[in-house]
């Protein structure tokens, strides 16, 4: 019965997006309220689906009643359910923030289209999480990429146009690679359904080694471009820093992650852990994740613009997630998957708080924002909590995912990865701690002219910071689900 709800998480936001575009010119307040309502409904449905998937196993929905391989199936396993709930919940919080902030940060007259794009993005990301068909995955990836470029381009800042164009072109390279990879897989196996492709691929990988390798490489490049895997991340600092703050939160928090979700499905459900570990894939991913973890932080240290620093930090954190993907041990994979969830909470809190701080302080320069913490204590405190979580202080959720990554590395007998994780966490401290300290204790006179943020903006920031601590102290959700998902991925 609940499997009937499954297509709704994709269809409702898409339809609402078109309604928002049509109605937005007349009544923007109605559009804002409607968008938040749709997002909350999405989160509620995802919660119900998560409960059902935990109880009775993966939910399956046949589109049009046609079963694979004739039709497209949607399947929600535990991993997908956690991701879906993350998408819905985070989107609701960000939309509440945007209901007040979007009018300031978007170009004049563009706000209705912004809400439309946000809703379409919500539907498309949900589509990536629930689909079981490779071409449907490609279509949803495309829709979410275009919507993601759109929510960058609506910004008031002219630099956002260049950033959005760069994002679009590089994303198009990725899309071309993904489509070609899908074509190669279809040529080799004759199927597009993930389960069928996986069965046939195991048999024919020996007979078509180059086609299989080419398809794997194309998928890694394609989704790697979209997920900002080093060195394919070059579009990310511009795009995430020039976008409006709600967009930055969604982009860094969710958009780059859903492409990792797609990659997880490909690497572990289509290729499977045996085929994948025999290919050069894990080695390549390991090397690139090291570069991301270290160099992302190094670049972040060099930044003077607060949002660019956060954007480079995202590049670095994606390295942890890819490390988890490359180390094929249950703890490491669970740590990587958990970091998807945790980083979404932490980074969106950081971007939303940064947005408020920047708009109040009137500057994006880190040095010029000294002392802002005394004028806006709650916002800066939330920023501090999220920064601590990024560094991986025990008691925060960042610690849990890094712990599991390290456990997984030790399980495989390769403690060198633990050293890289620790070194990178120290580097994280080098750029987060100075800002936090200077914000609270630096010389500045913001108390005279700046007040704390209003509730609509402050609420989501505080909720996200609290969630960072809550999931750090009581990590059972979603850690249990993700550990069992990791075992499922690796057990076949």
């Amino acid at each position, binding site marked *: 019965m609940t499997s009937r709800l499954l297509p*709704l998480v994709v*269809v409702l936001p898409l*339809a609402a997006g078109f*309604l928002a575009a049509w109605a937005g010119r007349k009544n923007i307040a109605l559009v804002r309220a409607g968008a938040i309502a749709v997002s909350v409904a999405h989160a509620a449905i995802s919660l119900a689906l998560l409960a059902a998937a935990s109880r009775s196993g993966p939910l399956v929905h046949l*589109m*049009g*009643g046609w079963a694979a391989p004739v039709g497209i199936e949607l399947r929600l396993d535990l991993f997908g359910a956690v991701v879906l709930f993350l998408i819905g919940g985070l989107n609701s919080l960000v939309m509440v923030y945007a209901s007040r902030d979007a009018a300031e940060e978007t170009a004049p007259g563009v706000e209705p289209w912004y809400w439309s794009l946000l809703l379409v993005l919500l539907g498309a990301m949900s589509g990536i999480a629930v689909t079981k068909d490779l071409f449907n995955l490609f279509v949803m990836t495309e829709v979410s990429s275009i919507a993601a470029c759109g929510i960058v381009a609506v910004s008031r800042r002219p630099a956002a146009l260049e950033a959005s164009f760069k994002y679009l072109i590089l994303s198009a390279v990725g899309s071309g690679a993904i489509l070609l990879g899908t074509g190669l897989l279809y040529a080799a196996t004759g199927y597009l359904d993930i389960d069928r492709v996986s069965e046939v691929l195991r048999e024919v990988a020996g007979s078509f080694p180059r086609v299989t390798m080419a398809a794997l490489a194309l998928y890694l490049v394609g989704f790697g471009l979209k997920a900002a895997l080093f060195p394919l991340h070059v579009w990310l600092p511009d795009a995430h820093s020039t976008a409006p703050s709600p967009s930055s939160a969604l982009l860094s928090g969710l958009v780059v992650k859903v492409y990792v979700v797609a990659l997880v499905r490909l690497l572990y459900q289509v290729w499977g852990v045996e085929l994948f570990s025999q290919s050069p894939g894990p080695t390549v991913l390991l090397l690139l994740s090291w570069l991301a973890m270290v160099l992302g932080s190094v670049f972040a240290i060099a930044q003077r613009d607060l949002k660019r620093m956060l954007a480079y930090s995202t590049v670095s954190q994606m390295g942890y997630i890819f490390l988890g993907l490359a180390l094929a041990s249950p703890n490491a994979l669970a740590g990587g998957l958990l970091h998807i969830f945790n980083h979404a909470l932490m980074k969106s809190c950081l971007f939303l708080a940064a947005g408020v701080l920047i708009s109040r302080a009137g500057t994006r320069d880190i040095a010029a924002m000294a002392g802002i913490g005394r004028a806006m204590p709650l916002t800066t405190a939330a920023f501090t909590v999220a920064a601590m979580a990024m560094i991986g202080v025990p008691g925060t959720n960042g610690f849990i995912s890094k712990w599991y990554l390290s456990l997984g590395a030790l399980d495989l007998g390769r403690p060198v990865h633990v050293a890289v994780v620790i070194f990178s966490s120290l580097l994280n401290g080098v750029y987060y701690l100075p800002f936090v300290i200077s914000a609270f204790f630096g010389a500045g006179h913001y108390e005279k002219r700046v007040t704390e943020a209003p509730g609509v903006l402050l609420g989501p920031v505080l909720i996200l910071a609290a969630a960072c601590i809550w999931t750090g102290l009581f990590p059972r959700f979603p850690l249990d689900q993700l550990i069992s998902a990791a075992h499922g991925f690796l057990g076949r």
Partner: protein
Amino acid sequence: MPDLILSTIASYLVPLIWVYGAYVIVHGHLSPGGGFAGGTIIASGFVLAALTWGFDRIRAGFDENVLGTADTAGVLAYVSIGLAALIRGGWFLSNLGAGYPPGIPGRLFSSGAVWLLGAAIGVKVTTTLYGLFARLAESQPAREGQPRGEPR
């Protein structure tokens, strides 16, 4: 002042293009084509008309509001057909299982929901493609180095 040759030929061609496009849309379940292809054909008829007689003539009959409403109506029709199927038959976009009448294969009003969906897609594609063309073609070019105004 529309060009004489263009105006004469277009006045014969555009209705033909529109009828052909409508044929392709409606026969989507019987012959190659369907909503996408037919919608593109009708949109190209609109484009030819706009290029020949100017965008303002088209806007008199099909301005942004009409195009936008038709656009949204197409999407909502598609989604409603799918949701109705979800409620009645249990699967999103199911066809015969949801009770859409199959009719006699080979006739125009057959195949259940397929031609309804095709019509919705045709409307959507037409309005979208022409809308994109109109917006892009009517944006004002900027002088070198000078930031200029927004597209109309």
